[in-house]
């Protein structure tokens, strides 16, 4: 209870900032789904023939729930790299926080709460736009909001832990290029992963994006079985748990030595 309250104050700090700056972030959270859905779904999608492999639905509808997830994972990446490093090294705001009764662990929880809420809000916006554009394949796309948030956090938490170990931002580019980029392109958002060579599949199964997309798309088209749903969710929750564990450790090591 005490921990939750203390973590909440870390959330509040971001909220204070957001209240003054939400307009700037709102533009990008509106614009990015709109552009992606129009360009890839409506434009590019008009040239794509619906096949049994994608469930016989229009490409726009096939794409939409997966794009919610991909956008969340991308948003999570940016919130969990430079922003974390800055709070340690440049603005040093974390150092100010742990001089108060707040502990390093509570700093982590507050940060993750904030990122989660951002991902949730952006996903809601995305789904609303998708519905408006006729990209919703079914009412289940509402659940994509939850699954996208979950997948985003599953990537965010380990990345926060990693960012907490760095002293300069150079390796973030490696993360963007060699982790985020392939994860965006090859985890089933744009085409079924069954089209990939078999040896690549185990790598795909490791990514939170693939699990999120399976969940979001399955929920949208009503094809999600109970067991797979539990399995994917459990995997994402486990990634969050492991990420939090290491984040708390590394924050403590960095802030309390």
């Amino acid at each position: 209870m005490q921990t939750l309250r203390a973590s909440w104050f870390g959330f509040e700090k971001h909220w204070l900032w957001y209240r003054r700056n939400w307009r700037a972030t709102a533009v990008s959270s509106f614009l990015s789904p709109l552009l992606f859905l129009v360009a890839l779904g409506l434009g590019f999608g008009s040239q794509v023939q619906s096949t049994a492999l994608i469930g016989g639905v229009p490409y726009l509808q096939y794409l939409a729930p997966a794009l919610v997830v991909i956008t969340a994972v991308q948003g999570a990446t940016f919130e969990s790299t430079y922003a974390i490093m800055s709070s340690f090294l440049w603005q040093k705001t974390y150092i100010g926080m742990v001089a108060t009764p707040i502990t390093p662990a509570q700093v982590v929880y507050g940060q993750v709460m904030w990122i989660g809420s951002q991902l949730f809000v952006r996903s809601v916006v995305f789904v609303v736009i998708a519905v408006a554009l006729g990209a919703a394949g079914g009412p289940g796309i509402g659940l994509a909001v939850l699954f996208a948030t979950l997948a985003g956090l599953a990537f965010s938490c380990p990345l926060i832990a990693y960012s907490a170990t760095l002293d300069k931002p150079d390796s973030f580019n490696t993360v963007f290029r060699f982790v985020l980029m392939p994860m965006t392109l090859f985890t089933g958002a744009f085409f079924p992963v069954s089209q990939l060579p078999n040896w690549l599949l185990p790598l795909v199964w490791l990514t939170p994006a693939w699990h999120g997309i399976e969940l979001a798309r399955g929920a949208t088209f009503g094809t999600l079985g109970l067991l797979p749903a539990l399995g994917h969710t459990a995997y994402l929750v486990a990634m969050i748990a492991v990420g939090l564990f290491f984040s708390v450790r590394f924050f403590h090591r960095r802030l309390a030595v």
Partner: protein
Amino acid sequence: MFVNVGGVENLVEAKALTKHFGTFEAVRGIDVEVRRGEAFGFLGPNGAGKSSTMRMVACVSGRTGGELKVLGMDPDRDGPKIRARIGVVPQLDNLDLELTVRQNLQIYGRYFGMSRQRCREKAVELLEFAQLADRADHEVEPLSGGMKRRLTIARSLVNDPELLLLDEPTTGLDPQARHLLWDRLFRLKQDGVTLIITTHYMDEAEQLCDRLVVMDGGRIAAEGSPSELINRYSTREVLELRFQPGAEKPDLERFAERVEVLPDRLLLYTQDGEHTLAKVHEHGVQPIQSLVRRSSLEDVFLRLTGRTLVD
């Protein structure tokens, strides 16, 4: 009326306190007592172990060995409880640059669990104290170094701390900004706040501290009030003599109680500087420059360690 909140008179008590980082021994067994209401200083050069000590007292860094009590409690067990009642001014500002001056104060109050209403009131009061009321709703980023420092000090007071820790509070500030800060710190002292200050400026230590320890290489070299230390380790006056660069410096031991040879000048420790200067002149020694001054903590440090404070 004086209220003894914590039931202790010594706000900080350390015995044989040590701090190691791997094989590096930053603090090598120090004994310190800080009494309620005093301004206590840690004076020493960079790397003396001052900041490491401060971080242990601030309950953000655990001790390696020895005993430590802050406000009568053990930091290992009651860290958050102790931190709730102290204020910390860090060596490097860690203000939230994207928030306004006022918001920085308000959110910091929230970290201590204060109500929003109380945080708003406290922010107004502290803006006045820090002379930043006209900047209240500006962002922090473009403020001058002195203003940021004042805001950091104001922020550290948001929880009405009994004990305020200031780590190098005026490093990097111009003289005017320093004097303004010192004035604020004097006020706090008058209000009964106990201050602990680390500094490598001897004038700051002399101005602010009732009592101080001189630290060097992780150990305490001496302890006392500034005037006690000067009486014990130095003479009343110092005669500084400067000679042509490269010229051999004459042996003047017999004219003073003690002579320190620095790269660019000689320091003659004596009770009467003018008198000593006259004798030196009589003896036919011709320095290119001479200066008589009172002894300072710098001289104490030089005596104790054989080195100057600021290299």
